[in-house]
């Protein structure tokens, strides 16, 4: 039975369900086409947006898109909804909500107060009515600040994850990529390794390696080995130096089961990490990665379009007060985001939705070799995100991740953005760079020849 209608010109478009309106209103992307959920044509897409614009924002409170009874993520979203925080926008339609978000009244303080009153479905819906410019304008007003040994997300700052991956977890290779990144001022969000071997023993070895590097140069930052959460719990039990616990998450209970996690396992992991009390300026101990397409690839999307189900992953993330969350936007492949146009759009959507929900969003600006994209496109997305106030970006040596076999940003790219846009590293880390003599008289991180020699000599002298 058709429930929703809109007329464009002579054509009357009808939609059977709220989920269908959401899916058809999404900008075109290959993952929704793969799932058979995308609009049939551009006119139907705009018709769906017309319908969406006139629906009350509160519709999502009355009508969960994934059943409350069968999905713990829906239960989390509904049970933790803050009606008081929602009150100022409770009477808006989704179209009115868009206009309000863009208004001067919606300043940083107002958006911060509102965040607990918003659900993932609400922010996904309003994002579908926004152009890229709108997503940037609103996200840049939404600051989400978190801390562990550095403070991330402050106005005027751009942090970075230093990602020194190695195909066999070779300690010297990882140390080399780490030093290279430090010389570019990278690593203030985290020094985070994706291990080639997903085991407790291998992870523990890497944790000790990173901890030694951090201690040796007295670097105010945090490290992370991105192994499965159950491995991190075991590593903590065995006394390993775990700063942040990592996990890939998604927006439905079934998709999370595909990752081998549940809300209770995540809570257990967070308690374990908190028990170590390793943070100095804050106690945000979780690190999550997400990405459009994850739920569909696990066949666990409940008929939702990939952008809406991705926003629900941020609903999961915020329940655990993470230090860092990033979408791996172009990583999952062309079957979900076919080309650079789709990747750029999705990156801006993900950042916007996360920030509006109060999640400390970063982005892995990236693509794979089977997608229609290249480094020029990453330049565009990284610049747009930096203008939008993204908390952190990921950098690898020369933009080439030799372990995960994809391209992200180079350390060069993030440093260039900082200098172009006047963005600075996290304050604690910036002080360290200054103490190390890496900042020149113009406040730039100039090519550090003497320092390279000093650090490498010190490394060689071990």
């Amino acid at each position: 039975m058709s429930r929703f209608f809109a007329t464009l010109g002579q054509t009357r478009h009808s939609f059977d369900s709220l989920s269908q309106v959401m899916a058809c209103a999404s900008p075109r992307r290959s993952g929704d086409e793969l799932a058979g959920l995308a609009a049939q044509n551009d006119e139907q897409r705009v018709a769906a947006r017309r319908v969406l614009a006139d629906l009350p924002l509160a519709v999502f409170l009355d009508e969960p898109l994934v059943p409350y009874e069968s999905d713990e993520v829906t239960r989390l979203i509904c049970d933790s909804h803050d009606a008081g925080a929602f009150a100022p926008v409770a009477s808006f339609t989704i179209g009115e909500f868009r206009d309000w978000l863009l208004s001067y009244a919606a300043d940083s303080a107002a958006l911060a107060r509102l965040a607990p009153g918003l659900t993932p479905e609400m922010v996904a819906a309003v994002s579908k009515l926004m152009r890229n410019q709108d997503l940037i304008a609103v996200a840049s007003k939404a600051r989400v600040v978190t801390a562990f040994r550095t403070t991330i997300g402050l106005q005027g700052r751009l942090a970075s994850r230093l990602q020194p991956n190695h195909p066999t977890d070779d300690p010297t290779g990882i140390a080399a990529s780490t030093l290279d990144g430090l010389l570019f001022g990278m690593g203030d969000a985290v020094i985070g390794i994706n291990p080639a071997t997903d085991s407790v023993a291998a992870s523990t070895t890497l944790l000790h390696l990173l901890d030694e590097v951090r201690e040796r140069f007295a670097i105010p930052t945090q490290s992370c080995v991105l192994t499965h959460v159950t491995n991190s719990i075991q590593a903590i039990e065995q006394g390993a130096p775990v700063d942040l616990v990592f996990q890939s998450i998604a927006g439905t209970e079934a998709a999370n089961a595909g990752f081998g996690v549940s809300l209770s396992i995540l809570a257990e992991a967070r308690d374990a990490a908190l028990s170590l009390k390793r943070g100095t300026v804050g106690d945000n101990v979780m690190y999550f990665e997400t990405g459009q397409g994850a739920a569909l690839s696990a066949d666990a999307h409940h008929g939702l379009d990939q952008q809406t189900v991705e926003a629900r992953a941020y609903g999961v993330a915020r329940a655990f007060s993470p230090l860092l969350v990033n979408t791996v936007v172009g990583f999952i492949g062309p079957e979900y985001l076919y080309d650079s146009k789709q990747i750029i759009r999705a990156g801006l959507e993900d950042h916007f939705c996360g920030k509006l929900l109060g999640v400390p969003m970063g982005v892995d600006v990236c693509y794979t070799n089977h997608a229609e994209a290249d480094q020029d496109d990453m330049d565009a997305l990284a610049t747009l995100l930096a203008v939008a106030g993204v908390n952190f970006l990921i950098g690898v040596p020369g933009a080439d991740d030799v372990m995960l076999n994809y391209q992200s940003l180079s350390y060069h790219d993030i440093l260039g953005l900082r200098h172009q846009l006047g963005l600075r590293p996290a304050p604690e880390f910036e002080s360290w760079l200054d103490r190390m003599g890496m900042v020149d008289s113009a406040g730039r991180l100039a090519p550090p020849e003497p320092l390279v020699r000093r650090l490498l000599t010190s490394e060689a002298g071990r």
Partner: protein
Amino acid sequence: MNTVTPLDPWARFRAATRARIGLGRAGDALPTPALLDFQAAHAKARDAVHGAVDFDALAAAFPGREVVNVQSAAADRVTYLRRPDLGRRLEDGCRASLEKGDYDIAFVVADGLSAAAVADHAAALLNACLDRLSGWRVAPVVLARQGRVALGDDIGAALGARMVAVLIGERPGLSVANSLGVYLTWDPRPGRRDSERNCISNIHADGLDIDGAAKRLTGLMAEARRIRATGITLKEDAVRLEGPGGPSDALVADQRGQEA
């Protein structure tokens, strides 16, 4: 003007990693040679994605062993890239060639995203594993065109195998265009989740070598048979609780002992 080439402070580290370290800077940007090196590697990787495996040549690498050729429901490369669901399903016409038997393990070689990986490493790895599996009932080797990992579930179920190992070309990176991965799944059947598999990745000349990969895979297989499961319940650490004679061999031997 200083004409002496300065000592490269990164030299010692370059031997330890293929990562693009110590590239230097033109202002904040990549110097021209590094920029063009990157573009050349990207071009090569993109070309590699669209290559095709010579499955006839591959079949000849398993003399004396039955080999079955199958195809996924993705008819060509472009469909394969856009429709992973089709790459996970057997083309209907292929089912008849997979006869149900009493097998401990089925091996599937699928092209995946790198024809070069399969051409360079699949036969060597599979043969190295077979050498370590005397006493195991091994199904005919299945060669799968336009295949994804989960195609192994369909194949393993059709063969009636207790577990399936899928050797598959990994997505090419800039440094390595011929990296092979292996996914091991206990009790394969359509609908298995990724968390129910164990993965060994980065098998190539500068990554995990054939011997190491064969040891790890047969070790995982023995442990999977012992606990009757793969995935997050099968921790690789269990495989490495070793004596000096080599962990996985010990476990394989153990398993054989139990069977006898």
